[in-house]
């Protein structure tokens, strides 16, 4: 037994392929049998993935979900940023440049609006709970953008560590919500064509959330959403500690 566990841990990535294959099979069965295919198999698989992440996080107290369990470390490689980004890039194969260009204006508007609205919502709620200085408001607002923008903004402005932790938690929750919620809200917000997908990526911004959410909705939307989402975190890190902080400072005066 000990020997087998060691062998599986040593062949981590290969074992991850088997594990994820099983999760996919189980998900498509559940999707067919329980929801008659209404909830897409990939949506079920992503929810199962998040449940596994929760189980792993509770078991180990680590920050990388099931990948913190040594036996499942291969999941960390398979779903890590390197292979994830390679797979995202590959989805662009065969995309028509003209479609991309036509939706460009909507995508750029979505980016600007998505960043500003997230910061504004986050800062307003922060202020309502007593975090009413510009540094804390900008940091928590950054967390409302993505879980990277929050800590980058907070570190740049010298926010306290509890405020930074808060911003990370808010951003993580947003990523999880976008992953799970996208297939459910898609019909309500007209998320069914290239242009709305580009708008979606720019407005939501969280790469993992958008990548998961669109995979669960319709894989053909992925390249368009990923295209705009990939600019979001960088722009958020640019605007957060500068323009948005100064704007908040002008409003709050401290």
């Amino acid at each position, binding site marked *: 037994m000990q020997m087998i566990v060691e062998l599986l841990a040593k062949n981590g990535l290969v074992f991850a392929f088997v594990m994820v294959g099983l999760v996919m099979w189980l998900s498509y069965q559940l999707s067919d049998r329980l929801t008659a*295919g209404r909830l897409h198999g990939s949506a079920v698989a992503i929810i199962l993935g998040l449940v596994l992440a929760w189980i*792993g996080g509770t078991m180990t107290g680590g920050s990388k979900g099931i990948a913190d369990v040594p036996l499942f470390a291969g999941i960390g490689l398979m779903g890590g940023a390197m292979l994830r980004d390679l797979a995202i890039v590959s989805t*662009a*194969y065969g995309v028509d440049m003209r479609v991309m260009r036509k939706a460009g204006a909507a995508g750029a508007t*979505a980016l600007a609006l998505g960043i500003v609205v997230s910061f504004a*919502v986050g800062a307003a709620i922060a202020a309502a709970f007593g975090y009413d200085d510009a540094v804390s408001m900008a940091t*928590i607002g950054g967390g409302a953008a993505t879980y990277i923008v929050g800590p980058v903004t907070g570190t740049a402005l010298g926010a306290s560590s509890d405020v930074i932790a808060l911003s990370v938690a808010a951003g993580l929750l*947003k990523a999880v919500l976008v992953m799970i919620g996208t297939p459910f809200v898609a019909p309500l917000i007209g998320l069914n064509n290239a242009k*709305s997908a580009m708008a979606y990526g720019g*407005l939501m911004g969280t790469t993992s959330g958008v990548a998961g959410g669109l995979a669960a909705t319709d894989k053909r939307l992925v390249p368009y959403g990923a295209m705009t989402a990939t600019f979001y975190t960088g722009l958020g890190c640019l605007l957060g500690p500068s323009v948005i902080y100064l704007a908040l400072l002008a409003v709050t005066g401290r």
Partner: protein
Amino acid sequence: MIIYGVAALAACHLAGVILGDMLGVLLGVQSNVGGVGFAMLLLIVVTDWMRRTDRMPALSEQGILFWSAMYIPIVVAMAAQQNVVAALAGGPVAILVGLAATAACWALVPVVARIGGQDAPLPPLLPQEA
């Protein structure tokens, strides 16, 4: 050969990420700006040129399509390593901020998607394509 497709994909990925990192440094941001996006644009342009000049046989194409087909399983593996515990343990402020920001941006999708005229929905997906 299949590896040619994989190599073209990987080269576009790296070139894009390098470009994104350089843009990040240029803007003075501690983050990659649009690397994956640049990589996607590169892949579209490069593979379009390769196809038009007959440098992309079906076998090379398979090297890219394989990774595209692995996208959803990879995303499932990504989901399985999210810090879900921390996402749920942030307390009322973090939960409210996360919920409200997500909801507000969801509500804006139809507004922004209307810029420059509404697009028709994609044709329905065949089960075997999913």
